[in-house]
């Protein structure tokens, strides 16, 4: 009965948390939109200038006409209000460079980025947690040193350099994996073959992006586990006669994971940012490439659209992290 009550109370607390976080997300989103809008417009040069340059528009009257057509003749506050109003109607604007709605331009590229992000985070968690556990269980042994050295290396190595080195080794020299792209051009045959083809293309960018975070998780988890393993409840668990593995995985690891989960939530945004570089190195057709192009061409609507969607992803990830936090440690009630 007590368990049911506790479970029900946790659900209520989780729902309360969800409601609160969603409510907090509104001013956060607004802040992100306003700040990004202003920052982008403060940057010198506009997409109109770039467009007229590329299209060799030589008539100043035409330039003025385009300025009005694209709403650039309005004062910036009016442009901002119009943009917020459009966003409220789920209208992210129109990308004149791609000649399509912004949301369409982003959704074409979004699946590739989400795949890369999810696989990188999964790899980082799997490798980082495993390495952290090994290092803490085998503390001050060869394995601990190996994990520390590897973590130091992957933490210090810039991801673009790591990516290029892996391309040279695994794609060029050994020929085991493709150099770049998301799938073999012309198709791998469909079905399972296509899935395997995508996985083969995904492996190197995932390693390049994920190993940096794996290094962080390994280091954080190692110290966290060493700290938790000294606590009384662990000693009690051992005294009760639980096996070493049971104590390590069920008691020490579960409690030691809290800082890792915290970092995971914070790093969602940086993983997205990191994908910009990795996508460039591996020609991965994701949002990162689109963002790079859009910033270079002052394609404000697309840049803002990606920022807004990126913020949404980070907010959702942080809500998920809070919920995981509560699940890992039922004593925690996040306010």
């Amino acid at each position: 009965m007590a368990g049911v009550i506790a479970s029900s109370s946790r659900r209520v607390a989780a729902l309360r948390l969800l409601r609160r976080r969603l409510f907090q997300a509104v001013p956060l989103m607004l802040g992100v939109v306003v700040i990004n809008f202003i920052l982008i417009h403060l940057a010198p040069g506009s997409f109109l200038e770039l467009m007229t340059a590329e299209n060799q528009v030589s008539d100043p009257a035409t330039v003025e006409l385009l300025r009005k057509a694209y709403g650039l003749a309005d004062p910036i506050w009016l442009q901002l209000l119009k943009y917020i109003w459009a966003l409220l109607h789920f209208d992210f604007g129109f990308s004149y460079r791609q000649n399509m709605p912004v949301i369409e331009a982003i959704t074409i590229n979004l699946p590739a980025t989400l795949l890369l992000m999810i696989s990188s985070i999964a790899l980082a968690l799997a490798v980082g947690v495993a390495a952290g556990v090994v290092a803490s269980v085998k503390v001050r042994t060869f394995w601990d040193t190996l994990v520390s050295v590897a973590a130091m290396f992957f933490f210090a190595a810039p991801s673009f350099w790591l990516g290029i080195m892996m391309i040279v080794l695994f794609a060029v020299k050994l020929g085991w994996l493709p150099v770049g792209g998301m799938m073999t051009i012309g198709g791998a045959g469909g079905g399972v073959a296509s899935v395997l083809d995508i996985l083969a293309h995904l492996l190197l960018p995932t390693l390049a992006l994920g190993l940096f975070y794996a290094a962080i998780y390994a280091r954080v988890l190692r110290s966290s586990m060493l700290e938790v393993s000294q606590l009384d409840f662990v000693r009690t668990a051992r005294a009760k006669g639980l096996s070493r593995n049971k104590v390590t995985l069920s008691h020490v690891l579960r409690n030691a994971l809290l800082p890792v989960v915290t970092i995971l939530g914070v790093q969602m945004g940086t993983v997205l940012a990191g994908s910009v570089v990795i996508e460039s190195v591996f020609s991965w057709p994701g949002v990162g490439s689109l963002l790079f192009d859009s910033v270079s061409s002052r394609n404000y609507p697309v840049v803002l659209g990606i920022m807004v969607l990126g913020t949404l992803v980070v907010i959702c990830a942080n809500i998920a992290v809070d919920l995981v936090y509560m699940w890992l440690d039922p004593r925690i009630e996040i306010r």
Partner: protein
Amino acid sequence: MANTVSRRVFGAGALATGLIGKTASSFAQGEPKRGGTLVATWGGGEPQACYVPAGGGSSPTFSSSKLFERLGRRSMEGAFEGELAEAWKPAADFKAYAIKIRKGVKFHDGKDMTVDDVIYSIDEIWKKYAAAAAMTDYVGGESPDSDTVIVKFSKPVPEFFFSSLLCGGVNYIVPKHVYAGSDPVTNAANNAPIATGPWKFKEWVRGSHFEYVKNDAYWRPGFPYMDRMIIRYVRDPAGRAAAFEAGDIHIGVFNPVAPPDIKRLTGTGKFVATPKGYEESVWSTSFECNTRNPIFAKREVRQAMFHAVDRSLIARTIYYGYARPGTSPIFSPNKEFYTADTYKTEFDPKKAAALLDTAGYPKKPDGKRFTVNLLAAGWFTENGKIGAIVKQGLEDVGIVVNLTVPDRPSSIKRIYTDYDFDLAISNQANPSEPVPATTQYYTSDGIKKGVPFRNASGFHTDEVDVLVEKIKVETDATKRKTLVVEFQKITTREASNLPLVEIESITVASIKVQNHSNDPNYLASTWYDIWLAS
């Protein structure tokens, strides 16, 4: 035939450092092999659209030129040849040209190309977008019969100018039935073009590649040899080099890899590198002086800027020898109009100092003369590095330099809209015909605030304006060349905007690739005859 010697002179630095590796094997070896897929790339990013009616830069020109065709083309020997036109000839007064249209040409959707398509393309695409600056005197077109289009102008048009127009840029023949009644700039067909070329659009996987397939109904019998062409986009030059090595890319145009990688790739014996195929699109890194600044209004100061900078050093160190000092706004590969008999802006710091003294800017007690804002346009990474060399050279003669390297949009705004610079390091790509691509940097009508890649220096004189007007209408080829030579003498002497270096653009290709680099603007040609050896 395996290693033909490039006909263009490579930079001495390149030879000294051995960077060239092998020169191109660009001619067919034996019987062409049919079938297969060619994977190509270029030294830049993905285009904003597959086809941009106004050009839109090198990227959409590269992607669209495999699908669309022009009325004419230029051979490597410099001769004008018919493509979608069989021939063209001027009227006696050179105010009209009769173009004989090729029969039996079909668009990719099966419809015949007619004179209506040609007139529509000239009226609605060339005149308004693709060649607007060159067609100011265009009056209109008409078709006296189903094979002929008469193109009329208000002033005499030199034959070289007209032929260059037919062969140039993105002056394509587009299907009227697809574009008429729409805004050509936003027409959905720009991202899935229907044209007449050897390759048909199949797919655009954004962020990755274009896929084109063989046009079985192509008007050149037996072409193209290959079944499929992929234009792949790899943003990072190092990634492109790796893709070459892994065999994922067969050919890359316009500097696809970094210069040190050219040596490495050609050193394997599996690749060739060639500067051929850029004769009609020679790039330069130029130096523009803002004559609105009273200091730079003085000719001696402008001349001094060029004398103070070691351009051979730029060619050797920044471009690894794939460049040579520029001497004239008409670039040295231009066989029709280039002259070396101009004001010499060779590296001579003593002469620079003397000119600055003469201009009234002697060294002050602190050793300084004046301060300049040097803007290196950040659209090419090399420009920022050149900025550092220029800064060093100018400071050696007592000029204090504030160097900034803004990104592309900022550079365009500061140079062409705000005129917010004293000296700018920029870039130009010029075809052989000097009007208007080259001349507009020196004439009054080239000064258009907010319009990029025009006369940003503000320099203009009646002498140059009158001279360019004469060049525009002079129909006698010999007299016209004399006028262009005079133009070069004046503009080099005035030194408002001159090339620091002429850049050698490079194509890298697998030795399997045959019939490449065989067009003077290879990036923008159709590649109808390319094939892959076994």
